[in-house]
C-alpha cells in the first residue's frame, strides 16, 4: 500500500543548524493497517508524516503510495489521496468561513463557479449528524466559534470526506481536554474502521498507542528503532515499551506531553 524506501532528509544543510531529521527510513504499510507511532521529542515522527504528505521533498529515497510514485508530487496533489490532521485544531479549517463553506471546499462537489446546492447541504447535514456534536444545526456559524474538539472533529470529517487512501494523524487529540480527546479518538476509530482506511497516527498516549490499531512503531533520532505487530504486540505493555525504548535508544523516552496510562 505505502512503501517508503530508504528516505533521508537533512534540514539546513551546510550550516551550523544542520539537522538530519530522517535517517534512511524504510517502512512498508499494508492496506488497512492502523499504525501508531511513538517516540521522544525531535525523533522525526512529524517529519516522517510531513515527508509522506509532501510538505517538503526528501533528499534521498522514494515514497510509493498504492503503486504511484509520489516522491516528487506537489502537496496539494497528494492531498487528493492523503488526509491529514494536525495537533493544532485551528490548522484544519478556515475560521471566518461557515461550517458548510468549509465542508463545501473539502467535498470538491460541483464546478468552480457553482454555489452550494440544497443537495450539498443535505449531504453535509447527514455527515455532521454522525459526529453527534450538534454541528448539523450550526452549519451557518463561522468555524472560529467552535471549540477545539468540535473543530478537530470537523477537520476529521473534511479529511475523510472522500475516503483517502492514507490518513495521517499528528497527535490530533493532544491539544484537547481528556474527555474531548476521548470523544475525538472514538470518532477517529469509528471512521477508520468503518471505511477500512490505512492510517498512521502519532500519539503521546502510550496506552492508546498499544490499544488502537494493529501495529506500533517507535522512533528515535530520525530512525525507526522498533516495530511490533500481531501476537507479540498483544502481549506488550506500556512498561515493556518504555524498557524497550531505553534498551534501543540508550536513554529514557522523554516527551513533553507523554501520558503513560
Amino acid at each position, binding site marked *: 500500500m505505502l512503501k517508503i524506501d530508504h528516505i533521508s532528509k537533512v534540514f539546513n544543510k551546510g550550516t551550523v543548524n544542520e539537522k538530519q531529521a530522517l535517517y534512511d527510513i524504510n517502512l512498508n504499510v499494508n492496506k488497512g493497517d492502523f499504525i501508531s507511532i511513538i517516540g521522544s521529542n525531535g525523533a522525526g515522527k512529524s517529519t516522517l508524516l510531513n515527508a509522506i504528505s509532501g510538505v517538503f521533498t526528501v533528499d534521498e529515497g522514494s515514497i510509493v503510495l498504492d503503486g504511484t510514485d509520489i516522491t516528487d508530487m*506537489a*502537496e*496539494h*496533489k497528494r*492531498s*487528493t489521496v492523503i*488526509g*491529514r490532521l494536525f495537533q493544532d485544531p*485551528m*490548522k*484544519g*479549517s*478556515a*475560521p*471566518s*468561513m461557515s461550517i458548510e*463553506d*468549509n465542508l*463545501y*471546499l*473539502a467535498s*470538491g*462537489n*460541483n*464546478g*468552480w*463557479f*457553482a*454555489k*452550494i446546492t440544497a443537495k450539498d447541504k443535505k449531504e453535509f447535514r447527514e455527515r455532521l449528524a454522525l459526529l453527534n456534536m450538534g454541528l448539523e444545526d450550526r452549519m451557518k456559524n463561522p468555524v472560529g466559534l467552535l471549540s477545539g474538539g468540535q473543530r478537530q472533529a470537523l477537520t476529521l470529517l*473534511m*479529511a475523510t470526506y472522500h475516503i483517502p487512501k492514507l490518513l495521517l494523524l499528528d497527535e490530533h487529540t493532544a491539544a484537547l481536554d481528556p474527555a474531548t480527546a476521548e470523544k475525538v479518538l472514538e470518532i477517529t476509530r469509528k471512521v477508520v474502521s468503518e471505511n477500512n482506511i490505512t492510517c498512521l497516527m502519532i500519539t503521546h498516549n502510550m496506552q492508546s498507542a498499544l490499544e488502537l490499531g494493529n501495529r506500533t512503531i517507535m522512533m528515535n533520532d530520525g530512525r525507526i528503532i522498533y516495530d511490533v505487530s500481531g501476537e507479540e504486540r498483544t502481549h506488550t505493555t506500556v512498561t515493556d515499551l518504555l524498557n524497550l525504548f531505553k534498551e534501543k535508544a540508550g536513554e529514557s523516552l522523554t516527551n513533553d506531553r507523554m501520558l503513560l496510562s
Partner: protein
Amino acid sequence: MAALLQTALELGLISSLTVLALYLSYTMLNVCDLSTDGAFTMGAAVGAVVAISGHPYLSIIAAICAGVLSGFVVAFLQTKMGIDSLLAGIIVNTAAYSINIAIMGNSSLLNMNSVETVFSKFKGFLGGTALASYSKLIVIVLFVAIVCILLAFFLRTRLGLAIRATGDNPDMVKSSSINTVVITIVGLCISNSFTALSGCLLAQYNKSANIDIGTGMLTVALASLLIGRMFFKKRGTGFGVIGAVLGAVLFRVVYTLALRLNMPASMLKLVSSVIVIIAIAGPYFAGKMKEKTMKRIAVSKPSETEGKNA
C-alpha cells in the same frame, strides 16, 4: 450644492470599484497588493488610447484586460519567482509608470475632449429626456451594480470560497487538494481588473488621462474600505461588498464637504493616510487598553479569584 453632491456620488462610485478590488485582495485573499496605483493608471491609459482610436465600448474591455495582465504579473512574481508580495507590488507599480507612458504614446497626458466615451454615448442615447442630466450617474451605477452582483455571487462559488480560505488558512486549502498558487493568481487578476476598470471610467469621466491619475489611489481606496467595514461588522460577504461601496461614497462625500469648508484639494492624500492610520491603529490600541483594564480588574480583586480556587 446638489450638483456638488452628485459629482461626489459619481466620483465615489467610480473609486468604489477600486475599493471592491481591495476588498477582494486585501480583505478576502489577505494579500496587500501595492500595485493598485499602477493598475489604476494603466486602466486609464489603455481605456483612453482605445477610446481615442474610436472604440468607446471596446475601451472598457481593453482596460479590464490590462488590469488582468497587471494582476497576473504581480501574482506571478510573488507565487512563482520568490519575490515578497509587498515588493512584487512595488516593482510592478514602478514598472507600470514606464509602460503607461509608452501606452500613452510617450506622453504624460491624453486629452479626450472631443472623443466619444461611454458617458457621451449614453448621454446621446438618453437625448433630451428628463434623465439626461443624470446620464453619467446612471452609467456609473450600472457598472458598479454589475460588478457588485458578480462579486457577491462569485464569493459564494467554490472558486470564491477557495479565495476566502486561502486568505484565512492556506494550509486548509492545500489539504483540500486546491493549489493556492493558482487561487492567488486568479484572485489578483480579478481584483486588478476592477482597479483598471475604475481607472478607465475616471479618465473618461474627466475626459483626460494623465500619468498621475492613480497616484495615492491605494491609500484612498484603503481608507474607504476601512470606513466601509464599520457598517456591517461580522456580516456575510454580500454586506461586505455593499459596505465597500458605501465606504467609498461616504469618503468622497466627506471630502467634498471638507473642500467646501476651504480645505485645499491637495490635502486629499494626507487625509486618506490619516484615516488609514486611525482605522488600523485604533482597534490595535483599543485591544491594548482592554488588556490593561482586564489586568487591573484581575489585580484589584485577588481575594475573589483566590476564594474560587480554594
